[in-house]
């Protein structure tokens, strides 16, 4: 059990600056997910914590030790890789025991720990097999088992579920979460899948181009994204963005663009004052749009033309055209609309977000 601190962490390859000034404090027993598109520096950051990449500048502390110059084996960490990295010439038992053997644990203790981990993961009957005789899901379990027998201070996961099929991925996700609750070990988890990030993380770190964009609890990222990138990255389908002009009509602020004119919700009004007569980006999540009813205040209702209807069973996704813009609305499965039909949509005012057009920061 240990906290992990990253201070002004930087990684430069010859030409590429992969990780830029990362500062992160991961608390003891916390499950932190690093998420971002490929090439955002999340894996590099994790590999620096593991000791597999040299640190160009900055400092990493695990527990109370600065580990910059420690080799991976002395950092007391365990890592699960995307391709599982099971040793193909060893049985499952030997794979799991390898780390303990290298650390010269007594045989009885090794056996006890491997049995224990195998029981937790339900792989007791696989111990004598070789990795090539296992299915993808079983290999994944063995890889996790190999990590947990060590009782390390920190678990590192590098996209461990990416190679599994969709159904198994959901199942393993739940198991990993359960496992973390049970073992209470600090974990750093890298993924490009925002659903995994949201469901697994106590806190989520969103990265892009080597920079940390935002650190926060999943719902915090979802509800109050720090910038347009985070807003668009978290949530599926992604948030709709429409560039609008802020206008002042008799003291009330309105957001306008061709085909769309809605009032700036009062909660945002004061912050948008300085942007009067300027362009900003309006962000609305698909689920914050619904077919307008008589009860909706008219200043949040607008006209739209249905382009595509995607019925998903539990919900319907409507791709609609509003002026020049195409936006997505996630509506009740009972909604009956037809393609090319005119419809009226309303937005939930206090959930709308505004972003600076240049800096893309939330206003």
């Amino acid at each position, binding site marked *: 059990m240990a906290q992990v601190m990253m201070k002004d962490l930087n990684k430069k390859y010859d030409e590429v600056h992969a990780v830029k000034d990362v500062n992160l404090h991961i608390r003891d027993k916390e499950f932190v997910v690093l998420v971002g598109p490929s090439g955002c520096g999340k894996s590099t950051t994790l590999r620096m914590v*593991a*000791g*597999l990449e040299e640190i160009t500048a900055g400092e990493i502390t695990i527990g109370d030790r600065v580990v910059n110059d420690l*080799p*991976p*084996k002395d*950092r007391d*960490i*365990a*890592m699960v*890789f*995307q*391709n*599982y*990295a*099971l*040793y*193909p*010439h060893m049985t499952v038992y030997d794979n799991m025991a*390898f*780390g303990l053997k*290298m*650390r010269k644990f007594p045989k009885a203790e090794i056996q006890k720990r491997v049995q224990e981990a195998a029981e937790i993961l339900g792989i007791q009957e696989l111990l004598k097999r070789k*990795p*090539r005789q296992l299915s993808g899901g079983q*290999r994944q379990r063995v890889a996790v088992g*190999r990590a947990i027998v*060590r009782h390390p201070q920190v678990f590192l996961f590098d996209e461990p579920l990416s190679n599994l099929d969709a159904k198994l991925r959901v199942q393993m996700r739940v198991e990993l979460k359960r496992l973390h609750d049970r073992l209470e070990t600090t974990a750093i988890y890298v993924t490009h899948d925002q659903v995994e990030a949201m469901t697994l993380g106590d806190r989520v770190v969103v990265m892009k181009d080597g920079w940390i964009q935002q650190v926060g609890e999943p719902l915090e990222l979802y509800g109050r994204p720090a910038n347009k990138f985070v807003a668009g990255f978290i949530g599926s389908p992604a948030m709709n963005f429409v560039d609008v002009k802020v206008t002042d009509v008799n003291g009330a602020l309105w957001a306008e663009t061709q085909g769309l004119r809605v009032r700036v919700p009062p909660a945002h009004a004061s912050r948008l004052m300085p942007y009067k007569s300027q362009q900003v980006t309006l962000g609305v999540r698909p689920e914050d749009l619904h077919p307008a009813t008589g009860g909706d205040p008219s200043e949040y209702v607008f006209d739209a033309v249905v382009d595509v209807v995607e019925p998903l069973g539990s919900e319907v996704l409507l791709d609609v055209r509003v002026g020049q813009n195409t936006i997505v609305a996630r509506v009740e499965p009972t909604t009956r609309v037809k393609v090319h039909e005119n419809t009226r949509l309303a937005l939930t005012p206090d959930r709308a977000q505004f972003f600076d057009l240049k800096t893309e920061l939330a206003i």
Partner: protein
Amino acid sequence: MLIEPKWKRWVYFYIPLTVFVVGTLFPFYWMLITAIRPDAELYRSWRAASNTPFWTLQPTLEHFQDLMAKTTFPQWLWNTFFIAVASTAISLFCGLLAGYALARLRFPMAGTVGTSIFVTYLVPPTLLFIPLANIIRTFRLGDTPWALILTYPTFLIPFCTWLLMGYFKTIPKELEECARIDGATRFGAMLRIIFPIAVPGILSAGIFAFTLSWNEFIYALIFLSSPERKTVPVGVVSELIRGDIYFWGQLMAGALLGSIPVALVYSFFVEYYVAGLTGSVKG
């Protein structure tokens, strides 16, 4: 599965295969038949009424007996074996370390070093033997097995390095990263994880190196002069062709015996060998 007409399988598969097999095996058959043919049959006219070029009615082992008794063939066999094993061992050792370093370690000029090692392999021995002979003389190694044990690696090491480098590159690097996190040093991970997985590659590099040194001719011809120091390929040719007289029976008996060890090595390791060349590591 689609069932093809029978004639197609014959035309595209069985007939070409038969031609290939016959073409490959015929020299060995010729070697065998000549080795066991009595001298009377060997040296009679091609047009003689009783000529049977493709078989013999009086097989004999006299050529083998002569080879063993009248020449130093057993000694040649031992020389060849010793030199091949020693130079293969040296080359494999260096090739393993160099191949691993080129495949895995990031160091300045790694690419250039890799390419230059390959280029040295392309320099033909016929160019190299003169400077090498000079070196051998300077170190007074002429006419000793060490002359060959130390010169064969000049072409074996580049060969092993390249073959093994290619093989190491097929092994996912996460395996050793995982081992290093699990508690091994880089060297430990190399020994315990990478080398055991690379066994097919190491074996095929070893077999190739062994065969190359077993069959090597030009260095052996130049650096060794005493009959009892020679290797099989040189000994057979230099001692069994005197002037314009070819001792065909003994020549072929020697060639046959000389090729048996290599054939044995190949047949024992054929599976590893194929896996080594196709580089198949399954995680």
